[in-house]
């Protein structure tokens, strides 16, 4: 995985085969014994699952093992896959189960209904209005993103979120899964999924503000 460390900005073109086929088509070919279909699926989901697994286990190396085990478990379970969920949801759920078996890296308590505020309370006055309002940073961040200098930074910030927030942010905002899919993959209630998403996104917003606020 040395490439992932040196990767900057633009992604290389993916093979046309994997770009064009739906999961369902890949699945059909996979079941008929086409190894290229398997490689197509791996190309699509290996990295996303590595990042997901890394939210559960202590090191990249362990995450790699978890994902290898996931692919084997998926191949073994292929005959039993009934298509009640999407292939992606099914794969990611296997990955989460493998990762949880391998060992969680922190105690996973259910988030409470009324967690800590997401914005530092000292930024509001006694009446609850902003005393230190949000500083402008959107244009600066966009410029940095355009220049290809921001993706790695955000990747690192996501990596530093508490595990459960990281899992939800990865699946929702990096992978673009729906809330419903994420609840299925992580076995979360809809309300808890939203609490974790809110905390994770709010933290990332604060990090952007800290990093990019316009110097006046």
């Amino acid at each position, binding site marked *: 995985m040395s*490439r992932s460390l040196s990767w900057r900005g633009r992604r290389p073109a993916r093979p046309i085969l994997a770009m064009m086929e739906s999961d369902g088509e890949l699945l059909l070919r996979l079941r008929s014994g086409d190894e290229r279909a398997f*490689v197509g699926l791996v190309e699509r989901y290996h990295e996303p699952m590595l990042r997901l697994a890394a939210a559960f286990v202590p090191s990249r190396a362990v995450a790699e093992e978890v994902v290898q085990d996931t692919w084997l478990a998926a191949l073994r379970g292929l005959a039993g896959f009934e298509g009640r969920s999407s292939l992606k949801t099914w794969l990611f759920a296997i990955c989460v189960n493998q990762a949880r078996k391998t060992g969680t890296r922190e105690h996973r308590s259910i988030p409470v209904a009324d967690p800590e505020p997401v914005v530092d309370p000292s930024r509001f006055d006694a009446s609850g209005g902003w005393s230190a309002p949000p500083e402008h940073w959107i244009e600066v961040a966009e410029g940095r993103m355009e220049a290809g200098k921001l993706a790695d930074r955000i990747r690192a910030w996501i990596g530093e979120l508490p595990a459960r927030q990281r899992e939800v942010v990865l699946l929702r905002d990096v992978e*673009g899964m729906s809330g419903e899919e994420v609840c299925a993959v992580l076995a979360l209630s809809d309300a808890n999924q939203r609490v974790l998403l809110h905390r994770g996104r709010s933290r990332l917003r604060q990090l952007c503000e800290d990093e990019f606020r316009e110097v006046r």
Partner: protein
Amino acid sequence: MRLLRGRDLVCRQAVELVTDYLEGALSRSARRRFEAHLAGCPHCTEYLAQMRETISLTGRVAPEDLTPQMRDEFVDLYRRWQSEQQ
């Protein structure tokens, strides 16, 4: 929703509702009060824009692609699995 009934939202409450708002998870009355607050509060409007921008930036952290070496490893994995099947 931790909204006080019949009272206007304050900024400290509004920032806690942003995700539920974006997810379409607010009740109709909570949504109305949230939007009424935004209409009179440029700071919370900016805050909402920044949350949207955060989501957009995160969405551009692209997945990485496989190296040719990894691809070979997965072909091997698949072949091992196939031979197990026989």
